[in-house]
């Protein structure tokens, strides 16, 4: 159960990607997502693809780790692919099933959406694989801090994320323990149909919720005892500083989006 937790895990290293400012990595991810949504044709997808290959190479993380993050998404992937396949009805029919038709346009569209989803997840996991949780939330907090002017709780959100990341392993461990204890008393989480299995989860979730509330209360008390009083007047251990590599990365990101848009325009008539 603990091994399934690949998405959102940090892979320690010293690559350029690891050393980049977390803020720039977040900006780059946003640019990248913009890029993959600008890629409207299959040939134009070559640019985000190349960029991904290049990034994984620079980040020096095993390909296996990046692909592992896709595993939990396989059903959603198949579902969106099939849905898109029949959704867009074009001119050139590839297959007529009688009740529905698969057209060339529909197929291209389905492939594009699936690719976008895959690259979106790969891009995000590259960010979390190369950025430790604390710098990540630090970066997010600082990127969002201009929004404090309109009362957006940037600090509180970042703190919540840190605590969530800190407690996920603890709660998983606890779930495991409760599950084992209940299995020993004859509970069955593995067999039966969906409803039966969902029912078996109830005695698991109730103690988990109760203990989470207790934990939250105790943690709040411990944080107050250590002088926590919100984001005001707080300094940070990690000082974030943009370096040359960050600006180079930004330039590359912008070029990537521009290239994608251009290529997408050029190849628009080809399909």
């Amino acid at each position, binding site marked *: 159960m603990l091994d399934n937790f690949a998405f959102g895990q940090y892979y320690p290293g010293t690559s350029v990607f690891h050393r980049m400012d977390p803020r720039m990595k977040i900006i780059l991810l946003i640019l990248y997502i913009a890029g993959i949504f600008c890629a409207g044709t299959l040939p134009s997808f070559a640019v985000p693809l190349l960029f991904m290959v290049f990034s994984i190479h620079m980040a020096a993380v095993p390909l296996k780790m990046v692909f592992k993050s896709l595993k939990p998404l396989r059903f959603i992937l198949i579902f969106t692919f099939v849905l898109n396949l029949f959704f867009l009805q074009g001119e050139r029919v590839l297959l007529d099933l009688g009740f529905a038709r698969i057209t060339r346009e529909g197929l291209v569209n389905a492939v594009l959406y699936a690719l976008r989803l895959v690259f979106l997840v790969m891009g995000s996991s590259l960010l979390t694989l190369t950025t430790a949780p604390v710098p990540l939330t630090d970066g997010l907090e600082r990127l969002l801090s201009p929004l404090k002017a309109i009362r957006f709780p940037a600090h509180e959100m970042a703190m919540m994320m840190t605590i969530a990341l800190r407690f996920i392993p*603890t709660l998983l461990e606890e779930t495991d323990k409760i599950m084992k204890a209940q299995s020993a008393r004859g509970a069955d989480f593995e067999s039966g149909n969906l409803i039966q299995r969902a029912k078996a989860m109830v005695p698991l979730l109730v103690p988990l919720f109760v203990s989470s509330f207790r934990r939250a209360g105790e*943690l709040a008390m411990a944080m107050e005892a250590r002088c926590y009083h919100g984001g005001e007047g707080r300094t940070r*251990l990690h000082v974030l500083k943009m370096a040359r590599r960050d600006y180079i990365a930004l330039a590359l990101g912008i070029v990537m989006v521009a290239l994608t848009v251009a290529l997408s325009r050029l190849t628009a008539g080809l399909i």
Partner: protein
Amino acid sequence: MDEIIRLENVSYAYEEDGPRAVEGLNLSFERGSFTAVLGHNGSGKSTMAKLMNGLFLPTEGRVTVDGMDTADEKYTWEIRKKAGMIFQNPDNQLVATVVTDDVAFGLENLGVPPAEMPERINWALKQAGMAEHAFKAPHLLSGGQKQRVAIAGVLAMRPEIIICDEATAMLDPQGRREVLSVMEKLNREQGITVIWITHFMEEAVRFSRLIVMDRGSVAMDGTPAEVFSDEEKLERMHLRLPVMARLSMKLRKENADIPLCLTAEDLAREAEKRWN
């Protein structure tokens, strides 16, 4: 006497007009002292602890830490910086996903300049014997190690007092020994005032002063030898002496010149010294 914490006629009720969790506490703690607080479940130990750093404010009476009244809002953060606290559950007091970041948490809250932090963090981790685990994730550490990270987190803030509320209750014997010896060292070498809440009678002997709480009040207050000599009173409060302590106290009553001993080895050694 140089007094660092003072409780004057302190009472606390969790709900308005509710029962008093502690009642009429009059206590004073000397700077650099090493005190254990004992008591049955629900005797008010945790409530008293939280009154001593302003987490709770007294319903009645007054608590002062180094002369600062905990009820005075302008002192709240200075008091909490001065009087650090370690809680029972090691999991529920660590905030960050890496040990150093957790130790930094208190410093960040105090607004310490980032340039000063690494040195203070390293020092604190070394004091707690956790330097080699500085970059680990807390959930990969043992209970005793997690508690020592919590101690380092408090220590980095340069406190003068550390209050441990049953900090060893969830640990195995090995972890318990580690944590208590870190606190002993901090008291001896750094002169930190330690208030150690426990229900392990074995631990209590290592302190110079014992306070026994019962139903929200102080029932006994003295050296371990003084407190342990009234076995009947302790039993009435559901506190049982360790076997060897009972034996050595009995021998003392029979006028044997023997100190309070906890283990059979100690007792044998002391006996040999005197009767050989």
